[in-house]
Structures are given as C-alpha cells and as structure tokens.
C-alpha cells in the first residue's frame, strides 16, 4: 500500500557474512520483538477467525454437526439473490449520502469553533453530547423523533412552522436520508473534536502569509485550512468508509431494511443470512465477495491517487 522510504533506512554497514550474528546486528531480533504483539493478536483475533470464516463460505454448516463441502454453491446462491443488486445500490447510496452530507458537517463545526474567541468550549460540549448516547439508546430515542404521525417529535416541531407531517422512515425516498441524518448526529461531534485538534495545530504563519498575499477569509479557509487537514480528512474518510460497510445496527433497528427494501444494505443481508436464516455459509460467501470488491476498490483508489499526487 504505502511506498517504502528507502532513503531513510538506517542501514547498518555491511558486516562479515555470518548468518545469525549479522541478522542480530542488523536489528533482526528487535524487529521480531516488535512483531510479537501484533502477530499474536492478529493471528488469534483476526487472521485465524477470518480464515476459519472463509472456509465456511464453501461449506454448508449448521454450526452443530459436521459441515458439508458445497464448493461454490453458496456463492452462486447469494449472487443470484434478486435482492442483491438493490442492496448493493443502497449501500453505495448510503456511502454517497454520508460523504456528501454527513462528512462535511464535523469539518464545518470544527472550523467554526476554532474561530471563536469565547465560548468555544460550549459549542464543543454541545456537539460532543450525542457521542455519549449509546447506539441502542440513541435509536430508541430517534424512533420517537421519526414517528410519522403528526404527534411524532419532529413532526410536532415542524408542525409549529406549518410543515409536514413527513413520513420519515416510512417513505422509500426519505428512509435512507433519515438514517444518514441519524448517523451524522451520532458521529459528528466526536469527529469534530478530532478535526478541531488538527486545526489547532495549523501554524498561524501560514494564515499570515496567505493574508499578506491578499487572500480573503474564505480563500484562507479553502487554501490553507482544508489542505492542512488533508491527512485527518483521509483518516476520517477511511473510517467512514469502513463504517459504511459495517452498517447494520441502524437499518436493522430503525427499518428492518424497509420500506420495500429501500434501506436493505449488504451488511443487513449478511446479518440476515447468518442470524435469521441460520445460513452461515451464505453469510460468509457474501462477506468474502464484499471483501474482494473492496480490495479491488482500494487498489483502484491507490493507483488513481498515485497518478494524481505530485510526488
């Protein structure tokens, strides 16, 4: 994934070729020492279980008795699921909505709070509050907010302004945006604090230099702040993407994938295969397909950014 930094490798001067000693001198033992925790932890809790899971994708297993080898049956089964294309589209739609509407919110909050001379902490605190609401509780609360009758909470409030009542989760068009609204609410505050920390680290000289060059406030934000945040933005985007493909608690608890499959996501399908139908083979087969797809996607992403980046 990342290019290695050959220039910096602390090369030890060539030694006499004496196998183990040379290996030891060149830091081989230290390297092994540093590798022990990660290798052990990943073997036990990531690679091992994943391989075990992948094996199940070519089996028919009820998790009780011996498993039956079924080859690629599970794969053809999940691929021929008539609901799969829509689930894939929904997942992509969720990712897009999240990126376009949800993603900039914490950046905007952080940029704004950073410009405040006073009371900044108050804004911070308010923005952070949703992060302490556990998801199960948050979804329980928001179900009341999204109640489609005119005495639901959102509809009551909007009703004061003569708006609504809106169907929220009950309409194919509004269901997915409603989920994104919830996830943005739940996640924005904590993310904003991370951005804020990053913005606080931007050197004032950069702004001064830009100001001397005649850049206005917006231009300074656009040409100094945002580029300086590139790294954090990348991290957060990665995190959000991973989150998108793990998304199931929200659609599961809010809509169960409805209405008319409008919030049926790939993860929800995997979940249903595994835990509702008890078909672990199908669930792991779809997981493997999803992982392969994401692998292709990230390789493509790598090459595209490589070409664009002026190195």
């Amino acid at each position, binding site marked *: 994934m990342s290019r290695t930094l050959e220039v910096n490798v602390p090369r030890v001067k060539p030694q006499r070729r004496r196998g183990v000693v040379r290996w030891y001198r060149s830091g081989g033992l230290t*390297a092994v020492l540093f590798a022990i925790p990660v290798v052990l932890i990943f073997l036990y809790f990531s690679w091992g279980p*994943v391989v*075990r*899971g992948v094996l199940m994708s070519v089996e028919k297993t009820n998790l009780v008795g011996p498993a039956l080898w079924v080859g690629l049956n599970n794969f053809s089964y999940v691929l021929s699921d008539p609901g799969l294309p829509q689930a894939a589209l929904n997942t992509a739609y969720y990712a897009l909505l999240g990126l376009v509407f949800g993603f900039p919110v914490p950046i905007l909050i952080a940029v704004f709070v950073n410009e405040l001379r006073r009371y900044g*902490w108050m804004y911070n605190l308010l923005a952070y509050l949703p992060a302490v609401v556990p998801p199960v*509780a948050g979804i329980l609360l928001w179900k009341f907010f999204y109640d489609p009758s005119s005495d639901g909470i959102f509809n009551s409030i909007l009703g004061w302004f003569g708006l609504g009542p809106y169907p929220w989760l009950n309409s194919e068009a509004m269901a997915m945006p409603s989920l994104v609204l919830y996830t943005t609410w739940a996640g924005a505050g904590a993310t904003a604090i991370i951005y804020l920390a990053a913005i606080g680290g931007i050197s004032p000289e950069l702004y001064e230099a830009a100001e001397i060059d005649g850049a206005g406030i917006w231009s300074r934000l656009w040409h100094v702040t945002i580029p300086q945040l590139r790294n954090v933005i990348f991290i957060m985007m990665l995190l959000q993407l991973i989150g998108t493909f793990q998304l199931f608690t929200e659609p599961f608890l809010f809509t169960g994938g409805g209405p008319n499959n409008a919030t049926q996501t790939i*993860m929800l399908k*995997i979940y249903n295969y595994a835990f509702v139908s008890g078909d672990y083979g199908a669930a792991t087969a779809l997981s493997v397909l999803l992982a392969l797809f994401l692998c292709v996607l990230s390789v493509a992403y790598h090459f595209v950014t490589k070409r664009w980046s002026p190195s």
Partner: protein
Amino acid sequence: MSAAGQTIVVAPAEFEAIEPDAPRKRRQRETKERGAISAADRRRPVVIVTMWILQIVMFIGLLIAGLGPIVWSARASLSSSQDIISDPMGIWKTPLHWGNLEQAWSGAQIGSSLGNTVIVAVGSTIATLFVSATAAYLLSVLRPRWSPLLSGAILATLFLPGVISLVPLYLTILKMPVLNISLLNTFWGVWLPAGASAFNVVVLKRFFDSIPRELIEAARIDGASSIRVFTTVVIPLSRPILGVVTLLTIIASWKDYLWPMLVLAAPNLQPVSVTLANLPNGAMPFAVQMAAVFLTIIIPVILFVVFQKQFLRGVSSAGGLKG
C-alpha cells in the same frame, strides 16, 4: 513546517503535509494565537455581523441537536409509560414520576455497568495503543525484509465485515488454540480483540512515516537502541495521533454491544451498552427503561462537563495534529 522534514520524507502525497512538531519549537506555542480570521478582520463590520449570525445559528442548531434529545429523555424518564408512547411531545405537562429513576438505578444496576464500561474502555485502549504502536514502529521505522508481507496481511483485514469472523472469533475466545484457555466471562476477551485493529495500525504507520528521519538517526548515533528510539523519540512525537486513536477507541468501546454481549455473558460483568440492549427483554415498565437510558447518558455527560478542559486539552495535546 520544517523544510528539512519535507526533503527527507518521501511519503505518499496525501501525507506529505503531516509532520509532527519538533518538540522544542512547539512547546511554548499558544494554540489560540489566531485562526483563519485575523485581528484586523475581526474589526470589520461584515465579519462581526456574519460571525454573530453564524454563532447564533450554530448555537441554536447545536443546542437542539446536542441537548434536545437529552432534555427530552430527562423528561421522559420522569413520565409514565402511557404518556411517553401516546404523545411524546406532550410529556412536558404530565405528572412527574420520580420513582422511575430509583427503580432504574437499582433494577438495571447502572452503577456497576458504568464501572464495567470504564474497565472495558481502559483495557481496550491500552491493548490497542500497545499493539498498533509497536506494529506501526516495526513497519515504519524498523522495516525488516518481511514487513511488506506483514503490512499486507494487516491491510487485508481492513475492510472485512465483522460478521465473517463473529462465530469463529467466538470459538477462538472459548478455547484459545494452543493455549487451551477460555476468555469467556473475562475482560481479556474484550480487551485483546480490540487490539487487532488494522485501521489504527495504518493510521499510526502513516504518522510514523512522516517523522523526520534525522531525529531517529540522531538518536541512533547517540547510541540509543531501537526500543529507546521508540520510547523516547517516536512515542513523544506522536502524542497527538495517539490521542486521536485513544479517543476513537474509547468511543468505539463505549458503543459496542454485540461482542461484549457474547463474551461477557455474566450480568455482573456487562458494560452499559449491553445492559441497555437487554432492557427491552426484561420486566421493566417502559418508563423505567427510559429512566435507565437517561441515567446512562447523563452520568458521562456530567463527567464530560466537569473534565472537558482536561479532556479537550488531552486530545489536542502537544499542539495538535498537524494536517
């Protein structure tokens, strides 16, 4: 921005801007010197008016989004089940039921669950930091010949959906291969798997990649061992990113309920998230469930308000993360 860092670090383009602060230089810098808006700007009427409007709009927006749900759940926790369900916006005028809070506190054992949450969060954070920092150091600085293999293997797990390994992971916890011990109903069963986070390894490695190599070289020339370089150069320089990883880990462990529900099956070990997820299956009237929800929200909120200065400073420690 130190020019020296730029020339040495040939990191991928999207990272070239990250660059940890040299400790000497940054230590005394004030965080709030200025932002994009300069002191001169702040005297212009347009800016003053715009800022005022923005402040008011943002304040109202955040007040509704941040405090609204909590205030509503506070009131709901003091209402009757019927009132909450039949007219959720009309509960303000209904009679108060103070007993709900007491019932929720003793019934759902919020106190001990919150304690468990802290134990889970602290342990998960330590495991995550230790594993991902040592791994990132190995992959970024020590770089043995087999490191591409290792980093490939770690990256490969980045996008794998958790469901694929939920059952096998559970089987692993029940009977750790080779060791033949069970981590069921021990906090280790939650702590250790938290350490296997490819995301954190990637993030830390990227950050370590950008540490000016001459700092490391200098320490080496002074005779520091690899371990010393790690503890005295790399870790102190990485405090901001470690702060971010810590925050993300704490939030993740605060919210996770599925895995703890499996591993911490004994009710006296369960963190708040699990307790809440189990509530609807209990015999508590709905209003008491709402009271339990409110208690689990309000206690961390109070802690956050009291310690918010320290907390925020901790996150943005050492001058923050330079983008």
